């Protein structure tokens, strides 16, 4: 059958899915993205009232072991032509082979583990930079801005957290005086063993690779134990939910990075429209998710009514989004010229943009 | 009832009074200077006796004299602190309990210990399995050995249940049997392991005199099939009536050994154990 490009009517009633955590311990980030996708689909359906596209939310709880089952569910539903997600690196690793085997195209707006693009999956596309850019940037910030010469690195052993922490360690070299691992996904809430070790190490900064809930609790327990060195963490912690988890006082001063620009900086009226639909300001990756969805929708609009057709469309896509200009290079990576990394800071109970970190 | 009538009638093979036969008979179990301590308590103190093939030996003594402990040492539940126990010429110590059973020693318990949720038949089958060799593999694939041994075991079990007189109850769960039936079942189960030596720990406890009489007959029959019997019992009528020889323990020490009549008239035994002669009560 193949990609039947001509009969545009065929694509009507198709579905796209969002694959990511809507519940669970790192849901806040998934919800940011889902809301972005919702906005894209909403706008599309308003403009194409005669040929609507349905959005299927697939809640992975951010957990790799749920992912294959959920991917299977998406694959079973033949109406689903493309997927925004998987949002997290761990679930991407688990589900990627299935999507690849089924030929179902995925554009992740946020999964940043570099190796995802090196698996040879024909269906993998990434709409943001990866941790080869974020990790060194975070390391440089610690070295050059915070000027910390003794750093403790903690990670949550996840595909994302461990990978990011490794990049940071690589950059900081001997400045890393100790490291430890915790469990993510809300499995651990008591960190006294780590805290004891960090406290004894007497460091100038702490880097955490992982997601916001654990980061918050670690920060809180560090502060309670009298450790005041600042915490630096990546995009997985970059949400106000971190502040809720740590408590405002403990969270103050935390540095958060992201291989993305602040969502409020997005072009055009994105921020207003987003707020009008969802009632909240856009958060980390709301904009990239919106863009990723629009790429799929553009394909459907162009009459791609099959999975093969849409996959080909995405592969050859190039165009403007609200967060960046999109063009995918080898392995499905975003064109490196488009990648930006920003640092944010927790200030007065809010996450505020701090500065764009220059690429090294 | 007098034991002078009993004793000569008993030894089936030898045909001579037990005591005289001792040197010529084959020793089956040798308890050799066994001492067993529990912390400060000396439960067995240099106990020394021999059990010969084909006899019924009584083991008596006051409460806490160490009789049950002696059984436990023989069957591998306790290890003697000093001394040796030899069964059919081999040392017991270091042997696993099931190995001892397979060597031909079987026992019953002072407090009945059946498999309550198995039927009477199954209880006996477990005993019969002691000498079976059906492996997991042959059971899994029902190889010929499985069929052969299942049939064999079944026949043997029914025969033994018949022998102790509870064949009619064979499909009943052990725990539903009456006290007396349970004691019988214990004996059948022990016999199913094809013992050379059967050790009975107070088999008549809680029996009334009529039932004790039946038990006495049963023990004799068992002996007549060639099984040696070691019997712990406080009921003197039974002990005197059935045993060929008696060993008396007190405070873990052997204080007397001999023919029932001798033991009964031994002043030490009377002082330590019997008190006034039985019928004076």
């Amino acid at each position: 059958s193949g990609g039947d490009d001509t009969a545009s009517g065929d694509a009507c009633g198709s579905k796209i899915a969002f694959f990511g955590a809507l519940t669970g311990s790192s849901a806040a980030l998934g919800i940011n993205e889902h809301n972005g996708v919702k906005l894209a689909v909403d706008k599309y359906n308003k403009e194409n009232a005669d040929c609507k596209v349905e959005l299927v939310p697939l809640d992975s709880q951010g957990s790799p072991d749920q992912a294959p089952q959920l991917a299977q569910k998406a694959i079973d539903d033949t109406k689903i032509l493309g997927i925004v997600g998987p949002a997290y690196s761990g679930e991407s690793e688990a589900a990627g082979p299935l999507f690849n085997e089924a030929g179902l195209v995925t554009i992740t707006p946020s999964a940043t583990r570099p190796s995802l693009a090196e698996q040879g999956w024909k269906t993998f596309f990434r709409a943001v930079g990866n941790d080869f850019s974020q990790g060194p940037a975070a390391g440089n910030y610690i070295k050059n801005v915070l000027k910390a010469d003794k750093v403790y690195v903690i990670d949550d052993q996840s595909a994302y957290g461990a990978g990011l922490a490794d990049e940071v360690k690589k950059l900081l070299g001997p400045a890393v005086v100790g490291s430890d691992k915790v469990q993510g996904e809300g499995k651990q809430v008591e960190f006294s063993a780590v805290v004891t070790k960090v406290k004894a190490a007497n460091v100038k900064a702490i880097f955490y690779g992982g997601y916001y809930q654990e980061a918050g609790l670690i920060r809180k327990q560090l502060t309670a134990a009298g450790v005041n060195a600042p915490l630096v963490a990546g995009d997985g912690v970059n949400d106000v939910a971190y502040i809720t988890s740590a408590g405002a006082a403990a969270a103050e001063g935390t540095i958060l990075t992201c291989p993305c620009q602040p969502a409020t900086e997005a072009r055009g009226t994105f921020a207003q429209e987003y707020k009008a639909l969802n009632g909240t300001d856009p958060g980390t990756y709301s904009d990239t998710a919106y863009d990723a969805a629009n790429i799929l929708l553009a394909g459907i609009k162009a009459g791609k009514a099959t999975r093969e057709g849409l996959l080909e469309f995405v592969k050859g896509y190039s165009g403007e989004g609200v967060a960046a200009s999109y063009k995918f290079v080898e392995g499905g990576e975003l064109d490196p010229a488009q990648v930006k990394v920003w640092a944010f800071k927790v200030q007065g109970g809010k996450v505020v943009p701090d500065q764009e970190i220059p690429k090294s | 009832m007098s034991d002078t009538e009993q004793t000569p009638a008993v030894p089936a093979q030898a045909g001579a009074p037990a005591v005289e036969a001792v040197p010529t008979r084959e020793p089956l179990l040798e308890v050799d200077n066994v001492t067993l301590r529990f912390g400060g308590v000396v439960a067995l103190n240099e106990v020394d006796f021999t059990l010969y093939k084909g006899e019924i030996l009584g083991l008596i003594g006051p409460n806490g004299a160490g009789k049950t402990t002696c059984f436990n040492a023989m069957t591998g539940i306790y290890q003697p602190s000093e001394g040796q126990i030899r069964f059919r010429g081999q040392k017991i110590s270091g042997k696993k309990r099931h190995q001892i059973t397979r060597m031909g020693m079987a026992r019953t318990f002072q407090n009945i210990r059946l498999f309550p949720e198995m039927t009477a038949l199954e209880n006996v089958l477990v005993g019969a399995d002691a000498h079976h060799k059906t492996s997991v593999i042959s059971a899994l694939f029902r190889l010929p050995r499985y069929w052969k041994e299942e049939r064999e075991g079944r026949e043997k079990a029914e025969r033994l249940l018949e022998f102790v007189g509870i064949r009619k109850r064979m499909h009943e769960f052990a725990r539903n049997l009456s006290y007396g039936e349970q004691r019988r079942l214990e004996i059948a189960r022990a016999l199913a392991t094809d013992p050379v030596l059967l050790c009975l720990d107070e088999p008549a406890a809680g029996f009334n005199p009529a039932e004790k009489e039946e038990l006495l007959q049963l023990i004799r029959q068992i002996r007549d099939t060639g099984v040696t019997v070691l019997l712990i019992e406080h009921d003197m009528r039974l002990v005197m009536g059935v045993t060929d020889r008696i060993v008396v323990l007190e405070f873990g020490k052997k204080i007397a050994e001999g023919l029932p009549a001798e033991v009964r008239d031994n002043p030490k035994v009377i002082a330590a154990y019997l008190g006034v002669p039985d019928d004076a009560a």
Partner: protein
Amino acid sequence: MNFDGLFSNFGELTTTGLTQGAIYALVALGYTLVYGVLRLINFAHSEVFIAGAFAALWTWNGFGLNQDSQVSGVGTIIFYLLAAMVVAAVASAGTATVIERVAYRPLRKRNAPPLAFLITAIGASIAIAEAFGVYTDRRPQGAPALVSSKPLFEVAGVPIDAIQLLTIGAALVMMIGLDMFINRSRVGRGIRAVAQDANTAALMGVNKDRIIMMVFIAGGAMAGVAGLLYDVRIQTLTYSVGFLLGLKAFTAAVLGGIGNLRGALLGGLLLGVVENYASGLFGSEWKDFAAFALLVVLLMFRPTGLLGESLGRARA
């Protein structure tokens, strides 16, 4: 293996371990008591603990405290602590009693086989934990920093703070109290009698149901206090923490010799300390591994725990 990580932090690892162990010990007492009397691994005891921990937290919320509140003044702090302790102990004891009434007593009345108890215990545990999970949206709840973690003094170069003192002190006091209660008092003797032979105990005039209730109440109250101490120390509570903590506490009880109150304390402290040493030596992700490895190894050499069983049936 990071020997430096172990030796350079030896003091801190020890104090953290003891503190953690004290909480294990308090929870372990409940397991040990119930196990001793009913021969039942009361899986739901971890939820008894959780109930106390939430009760303490909500008490503070009731006083208008949240995780960002600053509390000062020794008197005020003591008041908050005591109030929460009473509420937590009552809530936990109440939860324990309800569990016994709803999940165990009906089975006892029907002479159910032991495995049935284990399954209702597991069922009750899952249901209660999930109820808390649903109620709290499965989100961690923050507690105010009531007791300061500033070092009060140093012992051999190791700083000791008020939380550590409070936790270890409370565990010791409660454990000694319970030990005296069980071994000296008449009710205590009744508890031990029911533990060993419930029918005969009834023949001696012991009211079995009342004794069982007492056991659940005593174990529950200890767990409630443990819950409060947990809040004070960790300042964060999630519905699901009971499971692992309960498992560790039960492990502690078994390490010490189940049914043995002093064993529970010893086992708890030992477990806490070993865990923390392992975290220094191998990394904290191996902490729980070390805890269970300790259990397996120890039971191989001492099949009835460090101090042996006591409340329960001696295996004669």
